[in-house]
């Protein structure tokens, strides 16, 4: 009897990946490839680099799925954290300062995504997106502004302070307050 990987949970997919089932990785890519590529692309602003980052993350999953800690994070959080960290490390290691990103919170999509998730998961994601929009809309504009630069440009505290010509302490406070509020609203 063979497994229909498309129907199994993310964590179970990782267990099959540990057992070197390529098809399980293929399904994981179907579920998260677009998301991770989009996250990388918006950070580095370059198609080739975004491809490299995406491939690197999935290679890492293939080689190190056993290092995933289910008690610490969802598979999605594990993958997106790796992607963001890879992209930001690349920007800083190369000494590249991305151009000011023209994206705004209003551009964030609430459209359903046509990825490899089950209909139930797709609905859950859709509801989460709506909650994210509502949570962001509740933030004061100055907190939205600094979080935008942190989230989509991968700027450091000091780069945000330079960009907005604002004291470093103010940037740190606004980031912290914004994230605290999002945590409060978005956490189950």
């Amino acid at each position, binding site marked *: *009897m*063979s497994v229909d*990987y498309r129907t199994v949970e993310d964590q179970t997919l990782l267990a099959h990946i540990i*057992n*070197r*089932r*390529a*098809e399980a*990785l*293929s399904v994981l*890519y*179907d579920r998260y*490839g*677009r*998301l991770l*590529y*989009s996250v990388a692309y*918006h950070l580095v602003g370059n198609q080739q680099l*975004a*491809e490299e980052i*995406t*491939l690197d993350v999935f*290679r*890492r999953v*293939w080689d*190190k799925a056993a*290092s995933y*800690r289910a008690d610490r*994070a*969802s598979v*999605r*959080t594990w993958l997106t954290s790796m992607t*963001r*960290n890879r992209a930001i490390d690349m920007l800083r*290691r190369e000494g590249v300062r991305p151009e000011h990103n023209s*994206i705004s919170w209003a551009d*964030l*999509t*609430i*459209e359903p995504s046509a990825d490899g998730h089950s209909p139930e998961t797709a609905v859950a*994601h859709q509801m*989460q*997106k709506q909650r*994210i*929009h509502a949570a962001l809309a509740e933030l004061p504009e100055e907190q939205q502004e600094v979080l935008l630069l*942190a*989230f989509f440009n*991968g700027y*450091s*505290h000091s780069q*945000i302070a330079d960009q907005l010509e604002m004291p470093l302490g103010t940037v*740190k406070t606004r*980031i*912290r307050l*914004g*994230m*605290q509020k*999002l945590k409060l609203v*978005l*956490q189950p």
Partner: protein
Amino acid sequence: MSSETHVTEQLAAYALNLLADDEAAQVAAHLATCAACQAELDAYQEVTSLLTLATPTVLPPANLKTRLMQEIKANDDVQETAVPTNPRQPINWRGWFRKRPLWQPALALALIILLISNFQLRQQLDDTRTPANFGTITLSSETSAEATGLIIISGDGEYGTLVVQNLPQLPETQAYQLWLIKDGQRTSGGLFNVSEDGYLARIIYSPEPLAHYPNFGITIEPAEGSPGPTGNKVLGN
């Protein structure tokens, strides 16, 4: 750990990867031993991940998945067929050996080497594991009882942080250089100086996952660094 030393106020920025290297290194060092802050960080990372869900979609090139799967399948230990139940058939070792008599001495030797190295590895892990599943390697000095260092390696073996204390601050013409040592080869892990009180914490950037390097050393080099160690070793394991 006392509340005075918690890094709660920096965790949101840490989750967003906003901190400068030295700040991030200090937070990482604290997280290695503080389950409360680690749990708080996990919550911020979940928030960050939720935000990514709403990222406007950019479609990757159609061949990206093909490239990935071709790379993976080039690896010869891929299992093409999924077998959900009883995936491993019991092996008849006696029959296996009977069919392969010439392999027996080599296999026996390999088995002995594996057992010894496994024992040594287990001893190292017992010495170095911390509650948050980080690995740590202690660096010491042969010439100073006070100078010490610590390398904290992430749970997946990828990343690490160097922390040193009680080293003398160097003049501008010199720098400490960290060496990542594997198979006798020394790769630079970066240059640094310590603060006035002899302390430094910084992220280590390495060409390979940090756990691939069993040994580390720190020497005093010219300020621009050296391709290989030339000065006296001040810390090592």
